[in-house]
């Protein structure tokens, strides 16, 4: 039988694949495999990202999403004061996208509040300026904050072009003095540190979607791995035109908006 090099490699490749697959099934059998398949997507992301499908966002989603995030992370409600702390909030179109093309944008877009939060930038200015490396880039692409190292210098707040960071002018515990801390498993912060959205890194570790994604009943928030071409976010980005906030600054945000 004559077998040219190309065919040989094909057969060898398929055989190797078969052997590999078989051993994978041996090691991870039944329940274990199922668990591994379920757990893998949320614990092994290379670059977590989110798509906000603003066409789907309903009136009630804003409240649900913001409450879910802020209770899950014990964010005090000092809204309306200069001491306000926000991880996720609504912003009018012209503030969220100040570089928008023109003033005749269709009213459904122009008058719609946009959900904004930390953009989890690919090249984050806050990370570059932090003198103590309290803000740093995690291996999963999340711009993380190490509260234990934050000295409250607020360079990061000056550097962030999205206003995504809040400074604790007040002790957040004063807000919870006469009420329960909503999530006893997550620490509060103290006076003198900066905070922001952490993409629910503590929930991802447990295989849970971020609190906002889970709370959004209209499924307008889609979370996934930007580095994985087969992920839900990549599929949606392929199928729809999307925009990012202030892309010309070169911060390479991981949050995409479909308008």
């Amino acid at each position, binding site marked *: 039988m004559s077998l040219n090099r190309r065919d040989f490699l094909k057969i060898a490749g398929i055989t190797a694949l078969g052997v590999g697959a078989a051993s994978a099934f041996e090691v991870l059998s039944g329940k274990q495999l199922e*668990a591994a398949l379920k757990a893998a997507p949320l614990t092994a992301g290379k670059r977590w990202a989110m798509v906000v499908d603003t066409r789907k966002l309903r009136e009630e989603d804003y409240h649900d999403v913001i409450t879910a995030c802020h209770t899950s992370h014990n964010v005090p409600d000092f809204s309306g004061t200069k001491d306000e702390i926000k991880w996720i909030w609504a912003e009018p179109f012209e503030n969220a996208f100040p570089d928008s093309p023109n003033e005749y944008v269709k009213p459904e877009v122009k008058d719609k509040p946009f959900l904004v939060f930390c953009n989890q930038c690919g090249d984050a200015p806050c990370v570059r300026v932090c003198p103590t490396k309290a803000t740093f880039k995690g291996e*999963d692409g999340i711009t993380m904050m*190490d509260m234990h190292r934050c000295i409250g210098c607020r360079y990061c707040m000056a550097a962030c072009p999205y206003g995504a960071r809040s400074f604790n002018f007040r002790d957040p515990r004063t807000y919870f003095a006469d009420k329960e801390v909503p999530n*006893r*498993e997550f*620490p509060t912060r*103290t006076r003198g540190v900066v905070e922001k959205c952490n993409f629910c890194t503590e929930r991802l570790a447990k295989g849970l979607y971020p609190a906002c994604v889970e709370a959004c009943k209209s499924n307008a928030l889609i979370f996934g791995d930007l580095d994985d071409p087969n992920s839900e976010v990549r599929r949606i980005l392929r199928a729809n035109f999307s925009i990012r906030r202030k892309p010309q600054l070169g911060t390479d945000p991981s949050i995409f908006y479909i308008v």
Partner: protein
Amino acid sequence: MKLYDSGKIITGIVIFVILMTFPFWFNMGRAAPKPDPKLPKNVKNCVLPKDTIKTSHMQILNNWRDEVVRDNKRSFVAFDGKHFDKSLSNTCMKCHSSKKQFCDQCHNYLKVTPYCWDCHIEPKEPKESKETAEAKEPKETK
């Protein structure tokens, strides 16, 4: 021999001695009570052998927080093979479910006040009537 101004001098010496020894007799009979940390009743082992945890718990907490926050490595295998989440409030304080009867016993004696509790949530203290806090053993992780 004659001591001039003996009245003034002796009064001075008496006042001086009283002042110098003030801390000793002021605290007399009030020695700080020996710390008496209440160990959890219904679990046997800590995450490290007793001697090690006693002397090095601040180091392990320091490692845990770096590993969790900076390296996203949240699972810890205790010396007896159990798996735990590396967490101050959700692991240590599940077994040691009363901060007052455990951590504070030693720390008050030593006058150390770890600032961790400014952010990390303390467990709810058990009702006065109950002697020791029951350990609610933290969920084992895989």
